[in-house]
Structures are given as C-alpha cells and as structure tokens.
C-alpha cells in the first residue's frame, strides 16, 4: 500500500485515454462494432448501449449537453487521480486541442485500419510528421472486414511504425463485443515479433484466456509489452501479475479504460490490492509506459 502510494506520487501514465462523450455520441461511435454482431442483444442495442456492456456494469456516461469542455473535464479527472501523462487520439478535435494546449500532459495516438491499404500507411507517415506521434493503435476484431494481427495487410503498417519509430498497440485476446475472436489470437504475436524484431508492440485488453502464452512471448521477445487496458484491477490475470513480480517487471504497464468502460474511481480503488512487489509499482504505473512509448520521463508530481 505504501509502495503503491509513493509510486503514484511520482506520476502515473495512462496509454489509452478517450475523450468523454455523451451517451448518444458513444452509441453512434459503436456502430462499427454493431454492424458485425449477429445476436439480437448486441444488434438492437437496447440492452447493450456499449457492445461489451454485458461485462461492464458501470460504464461512465454523460448526457448530451453535460460536457461543454471535455478537455477541461478530463484534466480535472486526471488530476484527481494523479495521472500525469496520457495518450489520446488526435484524429479527434478535442484530442488535438488537448495535445496542442497541454503538450506535457497529452501525447498523440491514432488508430489505423489496414483495409485502407496504402492510405493507412500514409496516414501514419502524415501524423508522424505533423504530430509527435507516440502510438499507432488497432482493434483487429473490430475492423470490417476483420484483419488478423499476422495478416499480410498489417505488414506495411508494422514496417511504417518501425520507419517512423512509433509504438504499435493492439487489442489482443478474446474481444468483449460478440464478434469472432480469431483475428486477436495471442499466438499471432510470435510471428510478428519474429519478422519485425524492431517493432515495439504493446498488447491491450488482456490477452485472455491465453495469458500463459502471452507471458512466454513477453519473455521471448524484447520489444513485446503488455498493458492492462479494459481490465478492472481486480480482474488482472494472475499470470500477468506473477510475471510482473518476477522476470517481467519491465514489461507490464498500467493502462485504463476511461471513459469507454471503467471509471478511474473504480480502478484506483482496486489498484492498491494488487500484490505487486514494491519495486514493480513505479515501473507498472509509469516507467514501462514511458520506455515502451518513448514518452518523456516526468519529474515527480507535486
């Protein structure tokens, strides 16, 4: 507990932060997932405003008109929890404003879709030129059509990330939304890390249920990292916590799921109960993310 608090006082990095949006906007946003679902509950949306809503009981939400300045709102929320650096999407106007106005606080990320072919490659090049781009993200199971992580369509994307020296982050493991999991199988990471040893690859969304394999691969491939996105701390896989406490102290990093599915109140209420060893906490909360995404290391926050 004391180790957690003192590590937190040195600053926390969240590598996947969304801009708060109203319920209506989020419902529209998730259309890309809904169109690939086939079960009535997901399709009609009624029960599941959020396509993985059957798992997430307290999704943060705002009504329309409640958010006149999402950036200010987000900063207040980050301050309240001691989060000193956050990667946000700069395809989003609010995300752009956040990075421009608060360059020490917010860092630029984008998402890509390999179905766009060379346009996706050029998008990375363009954003890398215009922004100090830190992260190229993907959601292979959510693409339309789906694209497996080791599919040839991803290969030019990986090559471009290496060329512009930007970290790639992807959801890996069974996806929450009721769409096929195949494109996100953990075993695909092996081939990618073999062919592109220079690529810094950060997994998102848990790698479940193949966390034992994820640990084997994290051990095998120096540039492969794990981030805890979309998992409430009380659900962190035991394999991952054990690995962080042993040989993987430099490989596992905190990332939240705000505001998509988890509140920071929930996450920071549960975090102190994770049985990380004292030396792991500062690495987990901050240092590993700074290294994996090439973020500046921060002076201790006040």
């Amino acid at each position: 507990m004391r180790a957690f608090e003192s590590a937190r006082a040195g600053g926390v990095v969240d590598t996947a932060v969304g801009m708060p949006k109203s319920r209506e906007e989020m419902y529209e946003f998730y259309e890309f997932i809904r169109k690939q679902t086939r079960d009535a509950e997901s399709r009609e949306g009624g029960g599941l405003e959020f396509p993985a809503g059957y798992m997430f009981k307290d999704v943060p939400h705002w009504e329309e008109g409640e958010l006149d300045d999402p950036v200010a709102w987000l900063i207040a929320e980050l301050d309240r929890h001691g989060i000193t650096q956050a990667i946000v999407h700069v395809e989003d106007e609010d995300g752009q404003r956040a990075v421009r106005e608060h360059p020490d606080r917010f860092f630029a990320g984008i998402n890509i879709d390999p179905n766009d072919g060379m346009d996706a490659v050029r998008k990375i090049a363009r954003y890398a030129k215009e922004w100090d781009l830190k992260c190229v993200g993907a959601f292979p199971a959510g693409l339309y059509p789906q694209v497996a992580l080791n599919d040839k369509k991803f290969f030019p994307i990986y090559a471009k990330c290496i060329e512009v020296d930007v970290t790639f982050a992807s959801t890996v493991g069974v996806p929450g939304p009721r769409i096929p999991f195949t494109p996100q199988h953990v075993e695909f990471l092996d081939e990618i890390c073999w062919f592109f040893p220079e690529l810094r690859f950060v997994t998102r969304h848990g790698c479940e249920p193949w966390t034992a394999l994820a640990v084997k691969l994290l051990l095998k491939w120096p540039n492969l990292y794990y981030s805890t996105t979309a998992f409430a701390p009380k659900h962190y896989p035991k394999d991952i916590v054990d690995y962080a406490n042993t040989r993987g102290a430099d490989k596992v990093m905190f990332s939240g799921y705000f505001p998509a599915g988890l509140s920071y109140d929930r996450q920071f209420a549960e975090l102190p109960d994770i049985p990380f060893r004292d030396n792991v906490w500062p690495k987990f909360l901050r240092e590993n993310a700074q290294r994996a995404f090439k973020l500046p290391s921060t002076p201790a926050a006040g």
Partner: protein
Amino acid sequence: MAMPSDVGIIDLMIGLPVADRRHNYDFLRAQLHDKESLEEFEFPVQYMFKDVPKVEEKSDPVAYLLELMDHYNIEKGMIGASKVGDAAYRAMKDHPDRFFGSMQVDPNAGMDGVRDLVRAYEEVGVKAATAFPAGLNPQVAINDKKFYPLYAKCIELDIPICVCAGVPGPRVPMAPQRVELIDEVCWYFPELKFVTRHGCEPWADLAVKLMLKWPNLYYSTSAFAPKHYPKDIINYANTRGADKIMYAGYFPMGLSLERIFTDMPGVPFRDHVWPKFLRENAIRVFKLDE
C-alpha cells in the same frame, strides 16, 4: 510488321559480362535436390539454354558491354544490383546515360531489405526493385506477407517491381511464382507497378486476363528468346495490350544479344506495337524521362 531499325532500344534485363560465373548460382544450391543440377550444371537451366554466352576475360566489362549495346542499337539497359556498392551499382553510377539500375530485394531480410532499397534509390536512383521468389532461400511467394513492406515501399518511392513469374527454370519448386498470386497483390496495392519477368508460362493466358484487369500490371520478356515468346502475349500486344508488353533480354545470363536480335525480326508485332515494345512502354513505366 517489320521491326524498325531506328528505335533506340531499352533492354530491361542486361548484366555486366563476367568470365568466371561458377559461383553466380551458389544461392540456388541449397534448394536444389537433383544430381544433375548439383553436380553437372554450371548454369542451373542449361537443359533449356543451349548457347549460354561465353564471355572472355575482359579487362573492362563495362566498356565491352557498351560496345555490344551500340552494335545492337540498345540505348539503355537496366542492370541489377544485388547489394549496395557492387559492380553493377558502380556502373549505373558511372554511366547514367546508358544504364539505369534496379535493386534485387529479398523479403527474408525484413526491414533491412526495405532500408537497402531506400538507400539504393537515394544513392544511385534505382528505377526499379527486382525479385526472384522461387530463388530465395527460403522461397517467398509473390503474395506472401513478407513481400508487403517492399511493395508498400515501391509505391512510396514510385518505382515498379519486376518479379519472376511462372515456372522457374532452375529445378526448384514453382509454387511461389504462380501467376494467380499476382491477382491479390494488384488488388491490395492498386498503385503498385508490377512487371512480370521470365514469361509467366504456362499461365500466359491468365497473365493476359490479369493485365487487362489491373492497369498497373505489365509483362517483360526476359529470359525468352524471341522465337519462344508466348503466342498469347504477342496477340495481346497486338490488340489491347500494346502498352503492356516490354522487351527485356537475358544477356549474359542465358542468351546472347546476337541470338535475341537474330530472332527478333521474326516476331509478328504490328507496326505501331514495335516502338512501344522496344522502348516507349519502358520509358513510361520506369519513368526514364525524369
């Protein structure tokens, strides 16, 4: 129908003559299994090529080649470098008016291969990448993911890639060079200028279908003596494909220029096709006027 004599020919495959070629094909040996190829052949396809050009030891292979090119009215030749700094690489640097370069790529090299291509482009202005999928060790199919970063890079550099397609002569498996694999590549990379080498046989009819379908797919006649040019290809050049078929030779690898240009006038191209075939298509596709 007569072959014109006043067209400065562009040869899309020519090499510096080297007398001692015993080690030129070492790269193939690891994948050859038959005794004849391993023990008896100096050139792995000599069962097909009866008169592989004999090259005498010349003090200056570049001067010798230029002399031959003058004799056959070859204005420019594309020579291939397989690594940064080799003899071909130097020749293209020293004689930019007569030679333009291509860079041989191996997708097995991953990002290092991509970077070598960029370097060759920046240092000597190579006009194309080239690849021999069945000759790689391990082999890499035309539509294999390992090729994709190279295809993307060719698009970024705006240069074509010339790839052997069809059954390879050396006795290695043909699978990586099936013509049908080109379809997927042209679909995913519509901007990629893809030029086939070495005939596309026996799927020349499929090659024609695909050339019609994909605007950026082209065919070059490397490694074929003109008397063996596939009939499908000649017909296509004479009809809808006049802008798609380009001359490439095979000297000194397997055919003498004498053989090639003795056969050549016998090819029944229509009048308007000849200049496109010998010169104009290459200038356009390889951007030789820039």
